[in-house]
Each structure stands twice: as C-alpha cells, then as structure tokens.
C-alpha cells in the first residue's frame, strides 16, 4: 500500500479548474518531483497536500488515514518555500527549534536535536546568527533543517532552488537528495526545471494544464514520453517530416535524402521525433548543413539544417569523428530505436 495517496483531486478557483482529476500514489521514502511549466498547477497540488488549500473534490490520505479536511498545523508535514520564509526575529537555532517548541518538546531535548539538524545541513556553527546574516543557500538549508526538525511524515518543497544561483543550485539539490535518502523521508519536490527533476527524483510527475500527463522514472519520461507535451517539455526534441516510400522496409525520404530505417512504417507522411543523442555523423545518410557548433566540455552541441528544418544533436568530445565546422555539409544517421514515429496529419 502506498504511503501518500491523492485520489481524483480537483481544485477550482472561481470558474477556473486549476487541477483536474489528479491521481498519485507515493511509496514511503520515495522522492517525487512535480515538473511542469509555470502556472500548470504544481504549487496548488503541493498546497493541497500541505493543507493550505482545500480540494474542491477528491481525497488525500496518508498511511491509510484520510487527511483531506485536516488543518495544516495538524498534518505534521515539513514545508520548504522558494522564498526561504525564515522567521526574521529568530536566530538560526530558534528557527530550527520552532516546530519542537510549538510541540512542547522541553529545552533539554530540543537543543541536541537542533545541533543534530545544523550538523546535518553542514552549518554547525551558525546557530546564533540571524537569517539576514546568511547567504541564500545557507538560508534555504536552515529552512530545510527547520522543516525536518520535528520529524515530519513528509517533506514538501516548492521550487526551493529557484532563487539561488546556478552553482549553489546544483550542490544544494544534491544535498537535499542525500539528506532525503539518509532520513528515508517521503518527499514531493516542485520544480519547473527538467534537469533538476531528472537529477534527483525517483519518479517524476509531468504536469500540463492541471493534468498529470505522465508519472514515471526519469529515464522513462525521457526515453518513452507518453504524450507530445511530455516529449517536448522534457529534453530537446527534433521533429522531422518524412515521406514513406516503402512502408515494409521503412524506406523514407527526408528533405533531399533517402534512408532506410529497417522497420515497418505507416504509408504516407510521418513525423519523426528524435532526441539530440539519436543522431550520429556518418559518410552517408541525411544531408544537412551545419549552422552552429557549441563546445560544452564533454559534449559538443551542433545545430544544423536539413533543408529548412532545424535539428540539433550532440557529439562526444574526443570521439572518433572530427568536429564539423559551421557551414560545412554533413550526413546524419538516426538510431531507429530512439525514434518516435507518428503518422502526419
């Protein structure tokens, strides 16, 4: 049985349905990300779980108990906000100990717990500071410690890294994941950054206009997107239109070139969708002209045009192929197993 269950969750503000028939089962200790563009309803789902919004209909249960109507301060859920939301009048230690104090934990038990939490987030000496004396990354770590100190049943994070700069963002997301695994705490993490979601989640819920389009492990989301939206939102997707010349062998024409995919295809026109890593350079194949080469370190990102259709793909730095120059003519092969094929309208 799953630990957290969201059943047919709906939320409307006035006439606008913001969350539609949302279903999600989260196992104990699982790390789930809600991923989607701004305004798709991620925060609203999280706030319903936290108890800050009442669902219009549907059911939320934790460990088999219905908590749909339970007030936020009775839910024992840890929450981390994008704006940190540390209490400015309290020191770091008082912030971390706030939940324990509210729960009536005596000082003799509170202090060691606060020290443990500060050690966990790697800020053991900053207990006496005030929030405004800390950097953004430190403040967010304190907010994490504050949320975890009362041993909540669940940890909810709403875009906790969005206000931080890129370097801190990466190191803090890894730290969040490490702490989550160490404590084995069930976690829901809201983000609009697909790389972030990919890097640290057990499973990802891709949301689109209030609906969960796909709920799956990161690799499955990336390799087997279940809707057009998921395919386009997660990772880069190249779309090519092709005429099928021989449906049985999969012989097709793209632009001025003809290739054989070696698998049966529907007759007529098809759309091929391919990730950047599905392409490789070859002596023959689809003719293209390089427009831009971007050196990224381990990878080299190449933009090219097949007739008038732009494509982008990646090469390994130090691979056998020479790096093409902008303006040069190249030939591309596509790995058929990495293709999504659809009949064109």
């Amino acid at each position: 049985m799953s630990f957290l269950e969201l059943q047919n969750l709906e939320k409307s503000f006035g006439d606008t349905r913001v969350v539609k028939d949302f279903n999600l089962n989260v196992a104990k200790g699982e790390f789930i990300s809600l991923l989607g563009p701004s305004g798709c309803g991620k925060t609203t789902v999280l706030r319903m779980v936290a108890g800050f919004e009442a669902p219009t209909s549907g059911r939320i249960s934790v460990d088999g108990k219905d908590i749909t109507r339970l007030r936020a301060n009775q839910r024992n859920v840890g929450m981390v906000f994008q704006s940190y939301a540390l209490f400015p009048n309290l020191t770091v230690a008082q912030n971390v100990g706030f939940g324990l104090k509210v729960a009536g934990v005596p000082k003799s038990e509170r202090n060691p717990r606060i020290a443990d939490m500060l050690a966990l987030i790697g800020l053991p000496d900053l207990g006496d500071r005030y929030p405004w004396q800390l950097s953004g990354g430190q403040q967010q770590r304190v907010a994490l410690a504050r949320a975890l100190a009362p041993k909540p049943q669940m940890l909810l994070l709403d875009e906790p890294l969005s206000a931080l700069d890129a370097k801190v963002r990466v190191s803090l997301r890894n730290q969040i994941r490490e702490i989550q695994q160490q404590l084995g705490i069930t976690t829901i993490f809201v983000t609009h950054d697909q790389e972030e979601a990919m890097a640290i989640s057990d499973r990802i819920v891709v949301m689109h206009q209030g609906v969960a389009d796909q709920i799956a492990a990161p690799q499955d989301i990336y390799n087997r997107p279940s809707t057009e939206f998921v395919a386009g939102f997660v990772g880069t997707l190249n779309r090519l239109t092709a005429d099928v010349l021989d449906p049985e062998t999969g012989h097709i024409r793209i632009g001025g070139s003809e290739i054989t995919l070696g698998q049966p295809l529907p007759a007529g026109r098809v759309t091929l969708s391919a990730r950047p890593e599905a392409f490789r350079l070859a002596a023959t194949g689809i003719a293209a002209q390089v427009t831009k080469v971007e050196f990224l370190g381990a990878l080299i990102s190449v933009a090219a045009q097949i007739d008038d259709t732009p494509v982008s793909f990646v090469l390994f730095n130090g691979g056998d192929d020479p790096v093409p120059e902008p303006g040069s003519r190249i030939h591309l092969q596509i790995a058929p197993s990495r293709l999504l094929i659809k009949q064109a309208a």
Partner: protein
Amino acid sequence: MSFLLSTLRRRLSLKRLQRRGGPRPKSGNGFRRFWSWTALIVGGLYFFLPLIGTLEFSLRMRRGEYSLDAYRSVLEDPRFQQTLGYSVIMALATIVVGILIVVPTAYWVRLRLPRWRPVIEFITLLPLVIPAIVVVFGYIRLFNTSSFLPMTGTTMGTNILLMFGYVMLALPYTYRAVDTGLSTIDVRSLTEAAQSLGASWVTIIGRLILPNVFGAVMSGAFLSFAIVIGEFTMASLLNRPAFGPYMQILGANRAYEPAALAVIAFAITWACMGLLSLVTRITRVGRAGK
C-alpha cells in the same frame, strides 16, 4: 500624469549626472540654497517663537526676576498629579487595546482579505474627518443610562467608553503604522511556514507577527500616547478627570501656570517622539543592520 512622471525622471537623471561630477550650474545652486535656508528659518520662527514666548512667560511669575514658581505651583497641585495619572493610565489601556484590535485586523486583511484593504484603510481614516464632538454625542445617545448598553451609567463604564473613543481617535495612525510594518515581511509565507510547523493562530500572531512589526507597533503606541494626553473634547463631554480638561480649567483661571503646563505638556509629547524615533532606529538596526 505620464508627462509629469517623465519630467521627474529626466530631472532625476540630470541630478545623477551632476553628482557624477558633471559641470554644476553654480549660480542656480546658490540661489536654490538661499531659498531653502529662508524657508527653514521662517518655518523655525513660526514653530519656536510662540514656544519661546510661552516658556519666557511661564518663568515670570515672580516680579522682576525669572523663577520656576509657576512650575512648582503646577507640580504641587494635586489635581495635576491626579489628571496626569488618569490620562497616563488611559493612554496605556488605549495602547494595549489598540494593539489587540489593530494587529490581528491588519494581519488578517493582508493574509486573507487583500481586496478589502482599501476599504479598511478608508474606514481607519474616518476619525480624521468626523469631529470628535460628533462621535461623543453619538456615544452618549447610544450608550446612555436608558439604552441597551448603559455604559455611561457607571464610572468604569464611562472610562471604558472613553478608552474606546481614544482607540478610535488613534486608529488612523496605529493602523497605518502596523500595516506598513507588515508590508516589510512576507506575511503569507511566514504564516504558512509556521502552520506547517504546527503553530496555532495565537502562536503565529504572538511569537512571529507581533515581534516582526514591533517597531511599527511602538510608533503607533507613542502616537496614541501623545493623542490621549492632550485630548480635550471627549474627556470633557464625558466628564472624566483627564489631563486635557484640567489644562483648560487652569487656563481659564490662572495666568502663569497655564504657560508652565503647556511647556510640560510639550515636553511630554517631545519625549514620546524621541522615544519613538529611538525605538524605530534600534529595531531597524537589529533587522537590516547589514
């Protein structure tokens, strides 16, 4: 409107240029400085001449020399001590009740009723446009001995009525101060963070909201204090022994003492203002001392 704004913006950027060390129009600057000094001096005379006159007069009770006789006479008057004591207690009660009403209201409006903020703000401004005398007559009609709530029937009831009148008089200042204080914190996130940690409303308002708007609450409190100490109309019409009516009675019957009293009242008000700016400065240093 937009024209004004753009003009303003152009002037500002011009100023910025000048500050960067561009050529300064020397003569124009001197001209402007002359007028601002003139304005300051005229304003200063307007404020201080009557005060100095009063002070000088209050020292002339003894013929032919300056003395503090008038002050001694005032301070030794038992009615001075009684009325001042009464007004100080009323002021403290006004402050406490005012905080208990204003802080939760302003907080709730910001948290849950943001659309009602202009309406609430307008209501809090009403005491500035409705004369106190109108309010008192309203009170007396509503709460007289033959009404559903005969508050004017007992001394305590009248005191409480007067205190609520004071709370209302101070509302434009206290509400504004507290609301401005609340605007400096993220009310919603802090509330939700506290709720998710298990805090009740009382805990949230008492331990988080109030301490974070402490400076604002204190400035509201000192303004309330100054208003209550000097208030005449309400106390007089409700026939309570407050400091305001005492000043009036003394003024009608004596020559030098009222001047001394005026100076004392001024000193009290100024002390309030001094404390106000001191407290505001201290809390600000504590918070944003970065």
